């Protein structure tokens, strides 16, 4: 024990000899503690507040006795499980059709599955109301049905499937691409029928990817806030919306916090289960690079089936964006579809402050999130310091925590001393920075792990301190990770709503929150115009980042351009 302590002390002393590194580590640890862990602790403590300054499980007991909250819990779990399984099924069919069967139109199917990933998460809900709602294009204009039961279970499931199947597709596409097709060819060669080969070789090899996708979708759907707020309605309560309503509607902080905890626990369990699975996944990546594959592994009948499924999903996704585009230019959705720019006049006029605020907030928080992600990846992979493990898991935690919970945590934690931030720009920035670092960290860690540490040692050996080593050597080498971290952080800060809705104020507002309130007040045209503008901005910025990456860093050859 003694030597362990003295070793830790020696390690700290040595780290202290490089003051920049030492201060950097201290800053990272303390900021993670303050902006990731502390808000969650506040949620936990508040949920135990039974009044009169004493603590107990009273609020939980009360919540569990409330049939409405119990219904929300059951609904949330059912909805998440269904979305996770059906979404993964669709994702797998898409991924298999595109990577293995190479059905006609694969490129378009790929695009269709990627676009929702860069859209606001509730765009599906918005489009579903425009298509199937009371003034819905299909239900009212075409079929003349009034009050089609789209609110509640059906609509929400459809919206969440449309929103989250791309997550599954992207995960499974990676898994299927990294699977060596030689295995399937060998099985065919040994005389297996195509159907058998699929069941005995392809599917078993993709099981870890499928499990991983199911768990990811479960976490994302459970945390989803935008779709249920628009579509769930009072007949179909879910946890994330109930937590929001308790806080914003009833000002019942302890109950909101308790519901948040109910939401948090399954999310964190599923998330860490998924990470554990991925970390022990061994045989899915048999070889690194996508290889030439034969399309003979599926029969023409199966190909037709795959194509039809993809086509149906594509038409649905296409309808979503079609209705958003048309809605943005139609005078009154459902009644008067004459083209107009009125909605855009509104967006660029009265509503332009939200656009400006959103751009500013995303613009400021994104580089910080990107840089912080790289710093943490560097510290975790390359620097020995006590608490490295802790920093690693803490920085990934914001991935697991539902936005609603972290939003509630922020207003609970930062509306009193020592840090009063509610209503400021800072609280939005900090929330976005710490929520959206994990992707940058993950890809930074992956690239760093593949780079020989002696390259950095060479720089240190030549006299570079840790700041210069990081700035001149490490960062340029992990630029691809930096940029994918940037893109992720930017897309997410532009489209975030679940945590942000608690943190916006009259001084600082967001486009997404505006879209939500336009939907609630029935102003679908303006909501569509805002959404369209939002998607356009995101696409333009991604295009610019890609172009910069190509022209500025293309000269360093293939190794630099993973992005």
């Amino acid at each position, binding site marked *: 024990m003694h030597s362990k302590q003295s070793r830790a002390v020696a390690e700290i002393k040595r780290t202290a000899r490089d003051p920049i590194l030492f201060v950097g580590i201290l800053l990272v640890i303390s900021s993670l503690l303050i902006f990731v862990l502390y808000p969650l602790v506040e949620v936990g403590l508040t949920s135990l507040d039974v009044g009169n300054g004493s603590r107990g499980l009273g609020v939980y007991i009360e919540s569990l006795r409330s049939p409405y909250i119990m219904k929300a819990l059951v609904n949330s779990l059912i909805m998440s499980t269904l979305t996770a399984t059906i979404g993964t099924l669709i994702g797998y069919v898409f991924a298999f059709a595109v990577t293995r069967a190479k059905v006609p139109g694969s490129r378009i199917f790929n695009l269709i599955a990627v676009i929702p990933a860069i859209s606001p998460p509730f765009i599906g809900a918005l489009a579903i109301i425009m298509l199937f709602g009371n003034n819905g294009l299909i239900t009212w204009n075409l079929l003349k049905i009034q009050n089609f039961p789209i609110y509640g279970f059906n609509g929400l499931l459809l919206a969440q499937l449309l929103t989250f199947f791309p997550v599954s597709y992207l995960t499974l596409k990676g898994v299927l691409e990294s699977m060596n097709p030689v295995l399937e060819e060998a099985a065919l060669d040994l005389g297996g029928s195509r159907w058998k080969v699929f069941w005995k070789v392809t599917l078993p090899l993709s099981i870890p990817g499928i499990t991983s996708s199911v768990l990811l979708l479960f976490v994302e759907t459970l945390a989803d806030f935008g779709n249920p707020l628009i579509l769930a309605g009072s007949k179909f309560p879910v946890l994330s919306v109930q937590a929001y309503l308790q806080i914003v509607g009833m000002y019942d902080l302890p109950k909101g916090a308790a519901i948040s905890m109910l939401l948090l626990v399954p999310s964190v369990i599923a998330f860490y289960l998924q990470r554990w699975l991925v970390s022990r996944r061994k045989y899915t990546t048999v070889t690194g690079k996508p290889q030439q594959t034969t399309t003979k592994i599926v029969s023409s009948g199966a190909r037709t089936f795959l194509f039809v499924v993809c086509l149906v999903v594509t038409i649905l996704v296409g309808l979503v964006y079609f209705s958003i585009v048309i809605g943005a230019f139609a005078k009154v959705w459902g009644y008067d579809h004459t083209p107009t720019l009125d909605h855009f006049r509104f967006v660029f006029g009265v509503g332009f402050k939200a656009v400006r605020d959103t751009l500013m907030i995303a613009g400021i928080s994104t580089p910080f999130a990107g840089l912080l992600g790289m710093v943490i990846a560097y510290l975790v992979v390359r620097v020995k310091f006590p608490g490295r493990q802790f920093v690693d898991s803490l920085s990934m935690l914001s991935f697991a925590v539902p936005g609603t919970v972290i939003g509630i945590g922020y207003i609970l934690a930062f509306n009193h001393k020592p840090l009063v931030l509610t209503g400021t720009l800072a609280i939005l920035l900090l929330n976005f920075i710490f929520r959206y670092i994990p992707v940058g960290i993950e890809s930074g860690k992956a690239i760093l792990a593949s780079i020989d540490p*002696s390259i950095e*040692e*060479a720089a*240190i*050996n*030549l006299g570079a301190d840790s700041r210069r080593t990081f700035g001149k050597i490490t960062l340029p080498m992990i630029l691809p990770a930096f940029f994918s971290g940037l893109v992720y952080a930017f897309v997410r800060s532009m489209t975030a709503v679940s945590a942000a809705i608690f943190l916006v104020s009259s001084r600082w507002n967001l486009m997404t929150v505006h879209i939500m309130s336009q939907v609630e007040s029935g102003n679908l045209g303006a909501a569509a115009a805002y959404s369209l503008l939002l998607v356009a901005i995101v696409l333009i910025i991604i295009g610019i980042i890609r172009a910069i990456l190509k022209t500025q860093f293309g000269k360093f050859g293939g190794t630099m351009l993973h992005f």
Partner: protein
Amino acid sequence: MSVRLVEITKEFKDMDREGGTLVAVRDFSLEVLDGELVTLLGPSGCGKTTTLRMIAGFEVPTSGEIWIGNKNVVNDPPNKRDTSMVFQSYAIFPHMSVEQNVGFGLELKGYPRDTIRQESRRIMEVMGIAELAHRRPDQLSGGQQQRVALARAIVNKPSVLLFDEPLSNLDAKLREQMRVEIRRIQQNFKITSIYVTHDQAEAMTVSDRIVVMNKGSIMQVGSPFEIYSRPANRFVADFIGKVNLFPVKVDSLQADRYVVSDSKGRQWCAASAAPGIQIGETVWFMVRPESLVVEKTDRPGAKSENLFVLASGVVEKAVYLGATVDYDIAASFDRPVFAVSHDPVDVGLWSIGDKVTLKYSPNAAHLIPMDEKNKSTENNAIELVCQQYQSRKT
């Protein structure tokens, strides 16, 4: 500048081991003189790279001192030490051109742009890579990367140059070329250097002195000649080159020669012995294969008149390699004697079954101490292995 290591010990945490620590380097003391090139040689895992990394500052010794010139640098971070390292993987910065790589150390020291350019150019000329200045690292061959790495280290005029197995990624031919080159550059700039390798030929070529290491400890420090011809112990004798060892007892010391005899009463003599060997002690009598002369018993050669007879025997195996012939000769020892005969055209080429006499010069014979456990009965170890093997089979 000289480098002095004083009783360096380095332990690593290793939970699989008893006590939870792995001792990588144990009580390591060494002084490297100004301008000298000392090689750390040993099998993988012997602690040589760890020692080098401690000098560079990438590892911190658990105890001990590291002096560069008149300064104990043990608590200095690597970037504050005046050492330059040539890495095994070269560690060329992939996002910089050759010239930027070479000039990086000077840039960090804040030299003006012109000076950096001049100095880098000069070193690149010396290293023969001047025309590669604007190339990217991924356009270089292994040998060229090696030169860039060396140029990048030397341009800083470091007090100490450190080499971590610099040639292990090159093919055999280039390796031979580069080790001569490294020696030339080192002599040219007179930089105090410490060189790590597991390749004995490389160590022989480049070094002023060699430190043979095993399991974290120094086994012997000496010139290449001393290490090869006068090993201090069995480990060094075995590790470097091939060797014949015969268990003998030291009978007497006559006219600077040790007279020894084996269990069968055969008497030999050796001109040298590892330090501390006493009369009456059981030791190893060592002769290198190339020091043995193999003659047909019925046809002694003229050249071998001044040589002593080691034993007579029968050729068991003969491998003709052109320049040399490798013989295994059965001569009533536990195992065949290994001999390398040079110039077979002149000496003669023998075939399996030929009766031959092995001769040696006492100058080439050397005595080394037996390991403690082997002193009583030298065959114990072999017997033990056989027993274990038997018991596993049954």
